[in-house]
């Protein structure tokens, strides 16, 4: 496998992990909205589903993007595909 193919395979795997986490917090948990609402886990005292819709999922997305960006930068560095000064 060429260097470029390996790079792309790693990039793709990272995409799948990112999208899996994204799926859980944007779609997955809301399949169980009614059940979660009754849960005894209450972040800051809010009902669980309510909390996810107003803060939880939103905050997780912010963190997820920064985590994704960091991992992708590592992959790019590993293969020497990071941008250098003068790339335009």
């Amino acid at each position, binding site marked *: 496998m060429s260097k470029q193919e390996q790079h792309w395979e790693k990039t793709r795997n990272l995409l799948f992990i990112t999208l899996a986490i994204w799926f859980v*917090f944007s779609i997955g948990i809301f399949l169980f909205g009614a059940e979660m609402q009754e849960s005894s886990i209450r972040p800051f005292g*809010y009902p669980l*589903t309510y909390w996810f819709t107003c803060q939880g999922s939103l905050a997780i*997305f*912010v963190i997820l*993007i920064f985590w994704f960006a960091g991992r992708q930068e590592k992959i790019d560095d590993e293969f020497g595909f990071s941008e250098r000064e003068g790339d*335009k």
Partner: protein
Amino acid sequence: MIKGKFIDNLPKVYGIYTGGFLVFIILMAIAEQAGMSAKLIGIFFVAFTVLIYALIGWLSRTLQVDAYYVAGRQVPTVFNGMATAADWMSGASFVAMAGGIYFKGYGYMALLVGWTGGYVLVASLLAPYLRKFGCYTVPDFIGTRYGGNLARFSAVIVLTVASFTYVTAQINATGTIASVALDIPFGIAVYVGLASILMCSMLGGMRAVTWTQVAQYIVLIIAYLLPVFWISSKLGAGFFPHFMLADEVARIAELEGQFGFVKNSAADLATVPKGLAGITKAHSSVNATPWAFISLAVCMMAGTASLPHVMMRYFTTPSVRTARRSVGWSLFFIFLLYSSAPMLATLSKLSLIDPTLPTGIIGKTIAEVQSIDWYQNWNQANLMFISDFNGNGTLELNEFFMGGKAVVLATPEIAGLPYVISGLVAAGGMAAAMSTADGLVLAISNALSHDIYYKIINPKAETAKRLIVARVLLVLIGFAGATIAALEIQGILGSVIWAFDFAMSGLFFPLVLGVWWKRANAPGAVAGMLLGLISGTAYLIWVRSGGSGFLGITQLTFGIVGAAVSLVSMIVVSLITAAPDAATQKMVDDVRVPSGKTVLAQK
């Protein structure tokens, strides 16, 4: 004039600007104490901020193509994040969202999840790759990746339909705010709004829009957060509402149980002015089916990743790496406002319905409520209404009606904050609507001037001529948008949601598969864009004209139908026609590697 040095000094420049704005707020507060009239304060706030944006727009004027289309590709990560957040958060987010949450609760909060979750798709599937591509517009990517004028043209059609639907709503919002704040008729206010939008974007294109959007973000976030924190402290709910309103949410549920949701008869409801609603749904409980919630969230997420005015903001960063990080910053700045909207809805509702609070009106006598100052003001503005349906002389929960906008616009006044805060909120709403309208008008006119005029009609046009065409189109599109906005066909929020569905129907899969599926070719992409847009639109028309729909897909989620048709037709047509040539395949390989020159620069 400000290039280079200006970029290095950004934190200082915007730091001074923010400080100056805070001083302005304090001066206004002092003027209010000294007896300045509420109306004059409103005029000062809106006029002062709009003049500042116009000044920035004028300072950023340019005659260079790179600066006009992509701000010279040198916007730093964090500032691009702020600009994107302002570009993204429209008048609807600012003025209407808290109201939607107030009235509809959980079912509506799918929009919060959808409008933030979409950025994960932007960051992982598209933005860095489109940045590496080095295009000026979204159709530029489609046209070059797939090849051929037909693909480029189809992309322009989808872009125009989606963005134009959106922009009329924004111009409508600037008109609404300008008409209230400056006290002029709506029909004229729409054009005042338009003039301010054009002042920001016409001379400097993307460069001017970028720097005004950063300034607008600062105004709108201060205008949104300050009242939320203030009201929360004033009610004794806690100094940091986001972490401290659990008791208030529980208290609303308790009151809802106590009052009950009494259903009004149709005859009674007919007396309520159009556009006002009562509280008919529980505040925090799960009141929508999983499918209703998820389908709406999915449409908003896919729409986010297909709306050209958002995508083109990531063309302005210096590199692929900064494009990725910039998406994270964008979402962070959006998160600051979106996570506050449910808190504002909670505070607003509690202060109105809790009889133990001095501001509570439920349980008071009708005559008493009618004599309250703020009730009279907002009743006059057609945003509040009470009626004694059961004739018992006291106000019940089901006898109180309010417009969605009133939650943001009226709550400061209800909670007893000084008028200076209401003026600030008006300036914030104006900033939110203007920044989005700027981005949208620019997206449409750039696509028409670059993709239709320069790439298809007159590839030999000189720079000066291209930029003149771009500016003329900008003005024409702005006027067309304002004319339609003045007709007031669809509400602000409805048009915004439609825009997402249109964009998702026609552009989502052609964009994503352009990067992630090498086998995708021009006939497939054209089929995907056109059939997706046509089937989505047909479904919308069918449901609007009384059709029953299927699978619980409503007029707000028709993008699911469009995108599904788009995906299937794109794959089928791509597979039965010839694979893309070697040059195109190599282009896709190049897009996937961050280092090296942009794909378009290599050609």
